Each structure stands twice: as structure tokens, then as C-alpha cells.
């Protein structure tokens, strides 16, 4: 299982499409930095294909005032959870 890390918002970059097409059936996706914008209810449809395997970094949501606007299908993790995700994955791939 690979942990994919995406730091771009689907509203400003199409790299999320490459990310999704590269993901295997067990792989997980963590949204960080401006990528957390993809976790909003209005944006999360872009990540329907990985529902249940989609995570967003709490600190980056809080920094942007978006913690309350995160869609309920997204699993919010803090930086310790980020470390755990890297422990559980065989390797990580960053998309930017």
C-alpha cells in the first residue's frame, strides 16, 4: 500500500487527476497544505474514486479556517496521524 500525498487544491491544479490515476486499489491519499481544500464538501466529489481512503491534515485545515467545513467522508488526521499513515504504508509518493 502506497500513501500518496497531495498538496494542491483541485481548484487550482489538475495534478490530482494524475494522482488518482496512479493510485492502486489499496492506496491511500492524504491531502496537505492547499490540498486540504479538496476535502471541502463542495470539492470532495473530485475524490469520489478513493472514498474511505481519503485523509486530510488537521493542522492545515485549521490554519486555513476550514476545519468545520471538511466533508464527513474525509478522515481528518493530525501530524501524528500523518506519521502513522507513513508507518502503515510501504512507501510514500508526493504530488505537487
Amino acid at each position: 500500500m502506497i500513501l500518496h500525498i497531495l498538496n494542491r487544491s483541485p481548484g487550482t491544479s489538475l495534478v490530482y487527476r494524475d494522482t488518482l490515476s496512479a493510485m492502486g486499489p489499496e492506496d491511500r491519499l492524504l491531502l496537505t497544505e492547499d490540498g486540504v481544500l479538496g476535502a471541502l464538501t463542495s470539492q470532495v466529489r473530485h475524490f469520489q474514486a478513493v472514498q474511505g481512503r481519503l485523509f486530510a491534515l488537521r493542522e492545515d485545515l485549521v490554519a486555513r479556517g476550514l476545519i468545520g467545513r471538511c466533508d464527513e467522508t474525509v478522515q481528518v488526521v493530525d501530524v501524528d496521524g500523518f506519521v502513522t499513515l507513513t508507518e502503515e504504508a510501504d512507501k510514500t509518493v508526493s504530488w505537487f
Partner: protein
Amino acid sequence: MRYGLLVQGAPYSSQASHSALRFARALIARGHRLESVFFYHDGVYNAARLAAPPQDEPHLIDAWNGLNAEHGTQLQVCIAAALRRGLLDELESARHGKRGHAVESPFELTGLGQLIDLGHEVDRLVTFAP
């Protein structure tokens, strides 16, 4: 577990350095070992020894130095990326006939081969890019 980080974003330009530092502290707090941080592309500016950010802002360069002092984390800087950006250590400065230097220990100018070695050596290599 043994970790390595690859930082490609310049300090104070993108969030990459801050994200990497936050992740570094978290992984160490969880009992893992951070073997090395490798600075590449604009990330090499993290090694600028004369960086003097305002006192009420995080001092990234000091923070990297702290990781080395407290946890023995290596701070490796891609020499090709650094030299073309004016980030020379004393040896390279003399070799190129320049006055002064911008990089000092514990940051070390090194080659991309070291990054490949790091990728083989550690259990997890995580990239933080701009």
C-alpha cells in the same frame, strides 16, 4: 523506523520547509529516527547560514541545526543546486575564488548519489515540495 526527508521548497516562499519540519518533529516524538534531511532545488536555501528572519517568526535554519544537535540528523545539501544559487561553503568558495561563504557545518554540500543512498538506507523517504 528510520526516516529520511527530501525538502524541495525554499524557506519563507512555500509551506514545504515548515511542513517538513513539523513532520520531522512528530516522527522523532513518536520514537522514530530521522537519519537525514536532503535539501534539493530551491530547498537548498534552507542552508543559508546568514538567514535572519524577524524574531517573531520561526527560524527555520536554526530549527534544522537543532535537529542535528539534538538528534544527530544529517543535513545534506545538493551541491549542484547550491552552487548555482550562490550557496557555497568555505571550500567551494575558495575553489571558485569568492570571498565569504553561505553554508557551514552541520549542513554539508553533497551529491545526488547521497540522496539515492538515503533512499536505500531508510525505511521511509518523504518528499516535501513547493
